[in-house]
């Protein structure tokens, strides 16, 4: 059984509230992966300059990560 299959099996066996916690965590991991490529230390500054606010999608991914972290933090309080 793959990890994805095992996760699917567990999700099906859990109540909705716990499934939502898993979803929050999965979204957090997903957003973290999406934004990690765009940290200031690694980014291509030229590419960023060529963007406008209309297509600052990397920036949007970082904000999504910040929101996910805030939610995770609120869960822990």
């Amino acid at each position, binding site marked *: 059984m793959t990890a994805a299959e095992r996760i699917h099996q567990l999700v099906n066996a859990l109540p909705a509230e716990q499934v939502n916690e898993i979803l929050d965590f999965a979204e957090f991991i997903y957003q973290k992966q999406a*934004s990690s490529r*765009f*940290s*200031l230390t690694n*980014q291509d*500054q030229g590419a*960023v*300059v*060529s*963007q*406008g*606010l*209309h*297509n*600052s*999608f*990397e*920036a*949007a991914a*970082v*904000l*999504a*990560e*910040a*929101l996910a972290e*805030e*939610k995770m933090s609120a869960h822990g309080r």
Partner: protein
Amino acid sequence: MADKVRFAFTEVEPNLGALGTMPYLPITLTYQSQSVSVSGLLDSGSSVNVLPYEMGLRLGAVWERQRLSVPLGGNLSRFEARALVLTGTVERFPAVELAFAWTQDTNAPLILGHMNFFLAFDVCFYRSELLFEISPKF
């Protein structure tokens, strides 16, 4: 509670008539225990919310404590920005969490963009009537 609220466009350049009006939304931003009541430009052409530097300071946010750098494009690419999550309250709607690119540009306007104002609220523009309408997503 009303599920939709209409606002008038704000005149920013009187000499241009209707063209000089823009959709500025009155909003209260809160960070920890401090709040400011401000107007933000509803910008459907912006991927992100943008918070001017001074406004973040007025809210008591500390630049050095924000660890996520936000790579903004366009004119704001010259300035460093960091992610800051605030609570936003519009009219009597329930407060929502809004993530901002807090820029060090002191001249930047407060911008309400797709991530994540437009994910939290539906916005309908009636440009010919110089009105816009806001309703929260639940």
